[in-house]
């Protein structure tokens, strides 16, 4: 079965990831995938990680969700983006699904 969904992608400070995840849990999205410690460049300069202080690291989050959830994510995360920077991307995808997996 095919469903149309939004793919929301966020790259932001690794230190903010916990906050973002809490927000996502509150909104109640069905899931998300996180890639830790990606590197990059943006408005705040190059962020290539710093092994000693564990700062200047980014994380990437991807959320597949419906339109309403996407809007709620954007709203909830705007203050974080304003404060800590990062990039927030939305695109259209389809997901292949059936009844939710019944084991666990």
């Amino acid at each position, binding site marked *: 079965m095919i469903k149309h969904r939004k793919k929301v992608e966020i790259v932001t*400070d690794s*230190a903010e990831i916990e906050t973002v995840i809490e927000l996502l849990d509150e909104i109640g999205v069905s899931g998300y995938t996180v890639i830790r*410690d990606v590197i990059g460049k943006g408005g705040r*300069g190059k962020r290539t*990680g*710093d*092994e*000693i*202080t*564990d*700062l*200047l690291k980014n994380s990437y989050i991807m959320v597949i969700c419906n339109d309403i959830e996407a809007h709620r994510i954007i709203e909830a995360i705007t*203050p*974080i983006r*304003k*404060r*800590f920077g990062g990039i927030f991307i939305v695109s259209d995808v389809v997901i292949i699904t059936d009844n939710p997996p019944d084991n666990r």
Partner: protein
Amino acid sequence: MNTSIIIDNLLHPPVLFFFLGMIASFCKSDLKIPEPLPKLFSLYLLFAIGFHGGVELHKTGINHAVLVTLGAAILMAAIIPVYAFFILKIKLDAANAAAIAATYGSISAVTFITAITFLETSGMESGGYMVAALALMESPAIVIGIVLYKLFDKQVNKDESSASEPELHGFSWFKVLHEAFLNGSVLLITGSLFIGLVSGEKGWDTLSPFAKDIFKGMLSFFLLDMGIIAAKRIGDVKNTGIFLPAFSIIIPVVNACIGISIAKLIGLNMADALVFSVLCASASYIAVPAAMRMSIPDANPRLYIPMALAITLPFNSIVGIPLYFYLITLFWK
């Protein structure tokens, strides 16, 4: 002042590896210690310092003199950020001033180790309770720094912040204290100290081949990595004018001098006095930056990290420690 002391200090292999790292970085060599290996070395150092200190503390016991020293340590960790803040405010906004002040109020374990090694070369040894001082001096500056920020930043943009983003600026003291006193490095060194204290010499026999024999080797690798990173970070402060680089060299000396005076006052011996002054002089590049990033996100990590890591750390290791020791030999005569 005997220059051979400085040279001896510089020819110590771990220090030479720091320079090797810097050279590698300046030559743009691809030499690097990939993550998370640097974490292995830093966890190891915290563990070994803490455990060793605990065992030493077990030997001496916790007497009156120890408590006085620890009290003085906490006091210094709380006072330094205050005057540092007002000096910094001359040129910087409250956020950056507070973050840098906290950085200099806290301590650097590597500088501590360099001081210990320096003493060893001169055949001296400081008391195990100095490790306790080290552990106790990590956190207070974080709290003081944040208090200063709250006091002096609120006045400026009070209305704006309370209106638009209440839940984020709805600052949590719980989180701050948690981060200050329970962050990984504070907990590991304190925990190891405690385990050393509890397990005493029997525990030392068990762990000393790991905690002591290979210590200098692990330190060499850690410093190699620090050298690589410090050299990379130097560029960050280069473009900020003369104020911050000058601050990064002058304030440690000031802090050390105050530290030496207090050490004299409370009657520490020369070895302990050196370590005490070095703790005062050193600046944190692990615990404090992590805490600042979360509590004062408006402060720029590209200022406070390189100041502590790329200027103050090498300065203290190379010039500072022999200098403070020279001053101590003058005073203690």
